[in-house]
């Protein structure tokens, strides 16, 4: 069983037809997506067709990461290059668990393209930031740089001022060790993810501009969610813009505030919600009264949804393409347990078909 209208089990084509009707009727549909690159591509194409606004399910974290790229730019390196070259690694703030394997693999290796014999590890942390995972701390012998009562933006500010030779009033633990290591390093890399605030990322990249005047340094950006970053890439080539983008006027409009789906729902601007996630048992948030279409990995209908469709997962049920921060680019993900569950792209294709107009090629 893969499709339900309300709580009633229906054949997939019936569900598709019903969703197409809802989409066609909607004045302001909004999409929350979480799929592989092909799934996202197909849904962005669908969003264009029906004038919808789209974002990732974890749009809030993503918006900060996108803002770093759209507003500031910076220095970036791939994880593969970092593995082979970085002789100093500075972890900035909190790194999500999904990336701990990568960090551990870096801790277990030495840079083979560097004159340095090994890597030295530091970590910049602020008040309230979680402690570093024990195994990594032990293996990498990470030196913590910070101050117990200062938030991370203040810590980064003090570090940047110190690197630039400008006065600061406060000292950080082990700042001299870090400054010394950076001064001697051939290719230091700052690893960061899941920003607490965009200002800290601006501060970090400003620091890299300062350092690169005289020596080399870069940053390893680990997206808080690799799949979300894959969606950013696809959205950007398809529309010219990262999410949050909407098609309500026909053309894509990129506006992180206007096209913030949570805001649109809270302000009662949206009148239809398409929620898509390939993650096990992920469920759309409850939005009182807003008709919701759920494309989820579940064998039960989502209570309160107008339509629920059960979908397969890329790399499990079917082949897919995902962004991988391990290699810093897209990667083919082969199905490990092929099944008949429909892919997001297949459903989006069916919906395009149902919304048919002959002269419009599907994506």
């Amino acid at each position, binding site marked *: 069983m893969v499709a339900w209208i309300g709580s009633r089990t229906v054949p997939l084509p019936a569900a598709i037809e019903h969703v197409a009707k809802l989409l066609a009727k909607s004045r302001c549909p909004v999409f929350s997506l979480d799929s592989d690159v092909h799934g996202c591509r197909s849904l962005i194409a669908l969003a264009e067709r029906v004038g919808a606004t789209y974002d990732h399910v974890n749009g809030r974290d993503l918006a900060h990461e996108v803002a770093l790229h759209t507003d500031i730019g910076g220095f970036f390196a791939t994880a593969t290059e970092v593995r082979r070259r970085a002789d100093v690694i500075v972890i900035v703030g909190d790194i999500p668990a999904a990336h701990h394997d990568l960090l551990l693999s870096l801790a277990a290796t030495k840079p083979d393209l560097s004159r340095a014999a090994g890597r030295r590890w530091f970590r910049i942390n602020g008040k309230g930031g979680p402690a570093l995972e024990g195994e990594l701390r032990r293996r990498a012998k990470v030196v913590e740089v910070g101050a117990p009562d200062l938030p991370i933006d*203040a810590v980064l500010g003090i570090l940047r001022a110190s690197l630039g030779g400008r006065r*600061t009033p406060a000292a950080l633990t082990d700042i001299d060790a870090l400054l010394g290591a950076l001064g001697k390093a051939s290719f230091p890399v700052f690893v960061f993810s899941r920003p607490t605030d965009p200002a800290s990322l601006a501060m970090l990249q400003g620091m890299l501009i300062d350092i690169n005047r005289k020596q080399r340094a870069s940053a390893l950006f680990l997206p808080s969610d690799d799949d979300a970053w894959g969606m950013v890439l696809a959205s950007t080539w398809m529309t010219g813009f990262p999410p949050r983008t909407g098609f309500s006027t026909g053309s894509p409009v990129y506006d992180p505030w206007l096209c913030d789906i949570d805001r649109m729902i809270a302000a009662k601007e949206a009148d239809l919600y398409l929620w898509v996630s390939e993650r096990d048992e992920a469920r759309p948030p409850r939005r009182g009264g807003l008709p919701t279409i759920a494309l989820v990995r579940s064998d039960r209908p989502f209570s309160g949804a107008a339509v629920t469709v059960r979908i397969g997962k890329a790399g499990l049920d079917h082949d897919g393409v995902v962004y991988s921060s391990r290699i810093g680019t897209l990667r083919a993900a082969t199905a490990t347990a092929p099944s008949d569950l429909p892919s997001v792209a297949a459903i989006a294709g069916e919906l395009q078909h149902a919304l048919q107009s002959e002269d419009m090629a599907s994506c």
Partner: protein
Amino acid sequence: MKPLTFMLRSEPEERLDLSGLTPDKLAGMPVAEIAGLKIGLSRRPATVGDVFKITGTDASNIVFAGGSGRFDLVGAEMGTGRIRVEGDVGARPGRRMAGGTLVIEGKAGLQAGSGMKNGRIEINGDAGEGIGGPMAGEIHGMTGGLIIVRGKAGHRPGERMRRGIIALLKGCGDYAGLGMIAGTIVATGRVGRYPGHLMKRGSLLFDRRPADLSLTFMDCGRVDIAFPALFDRYLMEEKILDRPLLGAKPYRFGGDNAVLGKGEIMFPKG
């Protein structure tokens, strides 16, 4: 001539882009044509006539009788004349405004005066985040003009501001003057944490010592300089304040030393 007046029929069902309804753009336009302009932002957009009843003829003096938090981009890119909103507005009123006067009697949403170049915006109610700030991808916020907020202001007023003056008369949220390049922000009342964070140059002039000053701002002590009197006089002449803000010998902090350290925060003694 009577002001060209847009009377709101009822709360709009969608966000509206009102950037087309400015003195410059409506000069000489027949009412029927104005009524046909599309302003809605949903798939089935409303026209001016759907949302407003239009009276008056003087397009150099526009009045919105009744406002809404869904009125976006009121007065955007206006270069001359006057717009008054008898109510609230939504996002980015006065976006890229180049001249004239925009008066909002109620509240304003996000980024009032975003990228403003010149002219004057007065907001009698509260204003949202990012006053004068840049839109996504832009590297500069406001580059000139004057914004006065008589209510409370949100976070990040004057973000990446390059020139101009923002006066906040009931304080503001966090990060006033975030990444400021130059210009002046005046605030009376409470300001949130880390004013001047990442600021390169520019002046933050407050009526009191900020409660949560970033550590990379350095105490320069009390300063005996001519500028405060000059600026206080300007504030009073422009009727922004009715008494001096800084007075003689204010305190001065220099920063943000994390970046360039050439900005300042000043506030009066006591």
